[in-house]
């Protein structure tokens, strides 16, 4: 059976890949394109470790078929820093130790970035609801939530 040929844009660069119909977008990112920043925690939409943006929507890449990516624009954690310069959320997560094992971190960062783009000044409740689909087994969430709120507050002050 021939593989599917897919043309897409990832982090602003045109990318073509071949995939089996069964492969999810997460499988393709990790196994075909070696973009291993997106993690697989559950493969069932529950943990958010695989979060990416597809056409400006936050989604679980484990619940998107690789073939569906045809013609779409995808943003992954690999595109978040600007060269050597970390995104303010990445910097803040480091400063606040908002990560331990780090498996959940790419998903949290992508999800938090999408929140702040839509709602630059969220309340704590809004941050907690927006990130309810991202699970972390290590940090207890508090440092993550505070990091997002601090980045929002600093952007407002700037």
């Amino acid at each position: 059976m021939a593989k599917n040929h897919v043309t897409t844009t990832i982090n602003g660069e045109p990318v073509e890949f071949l995939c089996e119909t069964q492969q999810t977008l997460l499988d393709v990112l990790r196994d075909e394109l070696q973009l291993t920043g997106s993690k697989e925690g559950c493969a069932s939409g529950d943990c958010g470790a695989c979060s990416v943006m597809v056409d400006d929507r936050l989604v679980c890449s484990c619940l998107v078929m690789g073939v569906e990516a045809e013609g779409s624009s995808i943003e992954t954690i690999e595109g978040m820093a600007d060269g050597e310069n970390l995104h303010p959320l990445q910097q803040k997560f480091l400063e606040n130790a908002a990560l331990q094992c780090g498996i959940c971190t790419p998903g949290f960062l992508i999800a938090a970035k999408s929140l702040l783009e839509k709602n630059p000044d969220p309340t704590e409740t809004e941050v907690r609801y927006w990130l309810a689909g991202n699970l972390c087994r290590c940090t207890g969430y508090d440092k993550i939530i505070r990091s997002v709120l601090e980045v929002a507050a600093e952007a407002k002050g700037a």
Partner: protein
Amino acid sequence: MSALQYKAPTSVDEAAALLAGASGEARVLAGGTDLLVQLRAAMIAPELIVDVKHIPELTSVSVEDGVYSIGAAAASAELHENADLFAMWPGVIEAMDLVGSTQIQGRASLGGNLCNASPAADSVPAMIAASAVCVIAGPNGTREVPVEDVATGPGQTSLAKGEFVVTIRLPKKAPRTGDAYLRFIPRTEMDIAVVGVGVCLTLDEGGVCTAARVSLGAVAARALLVKDAADALIGTKCDDAAMANLDAAAQAACSPINDKRGTIEFRTKVAGVLARRATAIALERARS
């Protein structure tokens, strides 16, 4: 394994022909938030997946003379961002917004929630209460079916081979009409309804209820339209006595399962409580 095929037709007719022509099992793909989980768990093994998101009617929202046509595969996040639709049918949109996380909202659709046919699907009682109708296309043309007649039991629908839902139509809303949906879950997010209740009601100028529909989810093999519960409200001002009758009628309609998430007794009692609370919200909306 590798026999699985993927097609992304761009018209309703093309999709119907593909689905009807498949020799083995064919599945519609909307947001994939149920379908991909089931594929991965090997609960289903289709030979063809038909992605309907490239068909304009299935992903757009239009309104004509007050009647909304919602693409069956439109993502919930888009419906939530449609301020006019939200203002018109807050109960339906809030119900769909309860589905999953932000990530799930970016993909999950009303059509998928309905056709997955889970008895606990959140948007379904809200759509039933709102008198929503499905426009269904198939190899022999289109037909219209009330939402309450689509799911027939867990994972089962009345759709024939080759048929799929194109749009979900919400009727023109009468003046002084309000709708609401409430569910009970043990947590505040990311959980499956133990009970869900959708209510839509209309008042006359004097505040008397002239029409009502009450639908219960997760208390039977499929979402129920409970006429006795609606009758408890119609002709009243939804006072305490009417609310007590509504509560009793909702409880009487329940035949839930017993599981770790809720006993039969608990689910039945909560159905009555939520029916009253959802009615109170619908009333407030009908009055404002």
